[in-house]
């Protein structure tokens, strides 16, 4: 029912690369994408990151395409609003919807394309991180970044219990479904409420058990972590710098270019 991206990250060969390098690549892509003034650099970033995720990270291509389509609903609504309502320039296209005029103007469309490109490039960067770096690798990064210990610990425990409860939720949902619990709207409403409350009660029990078990193992408010050393290799460094340089060049060249 739920395919968590982390499952794919655990299988990816890029998992064993330096975490900081990957984070730098993602941060660079996100920042460059979001501050671009033309849709071309974000498009280039999206292509590069998709290539890295699918070919170097060995994510199944069809699965990746499906992932890219998933958040487009929100993007489509937002982009359409921007395209139809913003801008003051020349009219490109207009029609009337129930006596209400709708007009696409050149600069509005330009802005909409830019926002769409930024979103897609951002999604590709995010997927690169999500599909090549399992969360367990990121905990040591979180700890080193100076976040308070309690927050890191809380996120580790949450991470652990997400999988326990997801299993539980899926089992309950299957059990409800085979008993026709989602047959019609009223039934599914009731079933969903029961699912939620059972999940809550069981997770609460689990939390109390967890405290007892951690205490009996001398938990003193600190969990130590082991970080594997993974030095950055020369080919990785070369590829990354080539990518950075070409993006920056493209960024500079397309500063004033408009595509419409």
């Amino acid at each position, binding site marked *: 029912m*739920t395919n*968590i*991206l*982390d499952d794919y990250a655990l299988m990816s060969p890029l998992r064993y690369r330096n975490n900081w390098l990957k984070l730098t690549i*993602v941060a660079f892509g*996100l920042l460059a*994408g*979001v*501050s671009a003034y033309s849709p071309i650099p974000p498009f280039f970033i999206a292509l590069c990151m998709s290539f890295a995720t699918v070919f170097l990270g060995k994510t199944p291509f069809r699965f990746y395409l499906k992932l890219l389509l998933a*958040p487009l*609903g*929100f993007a489509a609504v*937002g982009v359409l*609003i921007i395209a139809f*309502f*913003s801008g003051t320039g020349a009219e490109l296209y207009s029609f009337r919807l129930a006596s209400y005029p709708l007009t696409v103007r050149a600069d509005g469309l330009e*802005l909409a394309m830019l*926002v769409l490109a*930024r*979103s897609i490039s*951002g*999604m590709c*960067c*995010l997927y690169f*991180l*999500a599909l090549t770096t399992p*969360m367990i690798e990121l905990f040591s990064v979180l700890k080193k970044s100076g976040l*308070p210990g*309690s*927050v890191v*610990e*809380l*996120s580790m*425990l*949450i991470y*652990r*219990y*997400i999988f*326990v*409860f*997801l299993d539980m*939720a899926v089992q309950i949902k299957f059990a409800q479904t085979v008993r026709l619990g989602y047959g019609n*709207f009223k039934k*599914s*409403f*009731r079933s*969903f*409420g*029961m*699912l*939620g*409350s059972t999940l*809550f009660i069981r997770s*609460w029990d689990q*939390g*109390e058990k*967890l*405290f007892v078990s*951690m205490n009996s193992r001398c938990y003193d*408010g600190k969990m130590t972590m082991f970080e594997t050393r993974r030095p950055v290799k020369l080919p990785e460094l070369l590829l990354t710098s080539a990518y950075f340089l070409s993006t920056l060049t493209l960024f500079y060249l397309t500063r004033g270019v408009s595509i419409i």
Partner: protein
Amino acid sequence: MHVMEGFLPTPWWQVWFAISIPVIAFGIYKMNKLVNEKREILPLLAVAGAFIFVLSSLKLPSVTGSCSHPTGTGVAAIIFGPAISAVLGVIVLLYQALFLAHGGLTTLGANVFSMGIVGPVVAYLVYKTGMKANLNFYLVVFLAATLGDWATYVTTSVELALAFPDPTGGFVTSFGRFATVFALTQVPLAIMEGAVTALLFKYVINVKSDVLVELKVVEESVVRKLRGLSS
């Protein structure tokens, strides 16, 4: 309702981070104080966070047919109060971005502000006032979750409208448009979530009410009255 990665342009995503970070810092401070006082609270917070994540990854039965996930923040706000809900909200939103691709990293600040701060604060205020006014507990929970969700959706519309103001009408016109379009799905969805949350609390009160009494969510007398009525 998550704002997608890369959707907010440059000044705005930083602005929302700047607004959210102090609130989160305050939440962390409150949480640390609570954890130092009562050590057993940390595992409970952890399972609550995981619960919110799992609840929000399930699909609500929906009337409109749109893809609809509950936010789950209403439950957290009622049980733990807004400060700690904000911290849980940050972690859950980060996991949603990384595991489910809901929301994003640059828009994390904006999403935390709407779903982790404004929503829970409104839900908590509604809950507290409702309980003071001696309304029916389930009605208050329903109102708190629904209004919290609406507050979230209005905040998201504000965020989008500020980032993309209308050239002639400015912020107000643009806000009206975003709010109208998103209202189609968000208004019925919030009512659904409110009803589901009320149902959830009904089962919890029937089976394990001592948890809620211990966390000072409801008074012992209220529980007794509710159980007397429902059983």
